[in-house]
């Protein structure tokens, strides 16, 4: 196959993989008891990271916006600027990249390892659809956990922003909080939720698909290659989707 056709073929295979996975959601084996555990695993795996990163990003935003807003004579808008940036943009994107690095790469490595050790073939030979048993619960755990982790990121970021805005720059905390509350409306929250759902789908689809469709996994080198490829592709997909959603949605 020519170099030009290969990416198209891979894209087609990934599209087929997503379609087959969604079709496999109807199977009883897809909901055989692993979903809740996976949701907790992905959530707890990334929780501390998301909390810490969210707090730091919120604090950093407060510092940056305080300087900028003061120049334009609107330091009272600090809370709104931090909250809006977190809820609409930075929260979904950064939480997605963190979850991708922490849980997405682990999922890709896990499935690639199962491919290499014939565990996926073994499931198929038992008459169990591997897509239903392995991929569906992991995909939906990604989709569902990301909005929750994004909310955690946003809250931690707001806390960091309020703390820095209130203590370092002399703004009354209540004023910063009021500003934050007035600056974010329902559409902004919807935008953040939609983005995080899409990013969760992208993480699950790309990480699981790249690993599941890996043609030959013969050792740790192959597992790390599959995992790294998945993370790189998913990172770009998240950033690209972020632009498209920001441009297309109100």
């Amino acid at each position, binding site marked *: 196959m020519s170099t030009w056709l290969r990416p198209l073929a891979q894209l087609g295979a990934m599209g087929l993989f997503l379609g087959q996975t969604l079709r496999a959601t109807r199977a009883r084996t897809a909901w*055989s008891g692993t979903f809740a555990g996976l949701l907790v695993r992905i959530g707890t795996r990334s929780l501390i990271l998301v909390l810490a990163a969210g707090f730091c990003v919120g604090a950093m935003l407060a510092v940056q916006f305080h300087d900028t807003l003061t120049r334009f004579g609107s330091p009272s808008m600090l809370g709104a600027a931090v909250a809006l940036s977190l809820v609409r943009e930075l929260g979904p994107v950064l939480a997605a990249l963190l979850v991708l690095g922490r849980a997405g790469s682990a999922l890709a490595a896990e499935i690639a390892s199962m491919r290499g050790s014939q565990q996926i073939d073994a499931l198929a030979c038992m*008459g*169990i659809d591997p897509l239903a048993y392995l991929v569906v619960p992991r995909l939906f755990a990604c989709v569902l956990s990301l909005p929750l982790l994004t909310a955690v990121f946003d809250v931690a970021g707001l806390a960091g922003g309020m703390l820095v805005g209130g203590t370092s720059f002399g703004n009354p905390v209540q004023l910063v909080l009021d500003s934050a509350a007035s600056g974010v409306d329902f559409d902004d929250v919807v935008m953040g939720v939609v983005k995080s759902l899409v990013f969760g789908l992208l993480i699950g689809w790309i990480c699981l698909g790249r690993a599941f469709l890996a043609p030959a996994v013969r050792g740790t080198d192959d597992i790390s290659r599959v995992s790294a490829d998945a993370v790189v592709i998913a990172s770009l997909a998240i950033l690209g989707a972020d632009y498209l959603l920001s441009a297309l949605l109100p």
Partner: protein
Amino acid sequence: MPDRASSDPTPIASVTGLELGYGEHRVVTGLEFEVARGEIFAIMGASGVGKSTLLRTLVGLAPPAAGAVTLFGENPYAMPEPALFALRRRIGVAFQGGALLNALTVLENVELPLKLNTRLDRATIRIMAHLKLELLNLREIDHLYPSQLSGGMAKRVSLARAVVMDPELVFFDEPAGGLDARNAAELDTLIVTLRAAMNCSFVVVTHALDSAFAIADRLLVLADGRALTLGTPSEVRALGDERLTALFGQTASGQRVPRAAYLDRLTAGL
């Protein structure tokens, strides 16, 4: 349990004009054979000759380059996926490295096919899994995880999982691979035990002459990209010591395996 061997004279698996390969490259061509109900059928050959690829093709995991495969009279490559999964519930496959799910214990691995393919209650599933573990002398390690098992134990657990649904046909990839002589002989014993206890057929892929000659009713020898010979152990022995040594890189001790005595020893505990 009905006598599967005598109730249906049609072959349980068959291969016609089979060619295996990748792209234009052919690894094996012109394969023709049938597996009868109740028999132990060994596929032998040196490393890289295409034995494991043939096994994957037989169980519906790797489409052939040409030719046809049937399992229970049906072509696994000409049926929709749900029907293929249903067909596979009638077979069991024990993989070379075990292919056990690392996140599950031995017991949970063996329970898995029953849990996901049947609507039996949890207690019944546990009893059935325990029966198979008992049969394979694995009851005492049922709480361990695959990472805690030796190679021989992992193969036995894989075999227990392969037979937990009482399949009519069991495929076993390299039972002796990576094992010392004692563990390999134990697995031979288990194959013969299970065939007798469950009245099922076995297709065993192996490069171990001794065990193949000892347990198989018929052997298919692959060499030079084709089926070199297909027949009973005595017919294969007719190839001669030199030829077998050249093929397998082993002294043809299979020529001198006292088959009857070996089988007596294997089945002594039944």
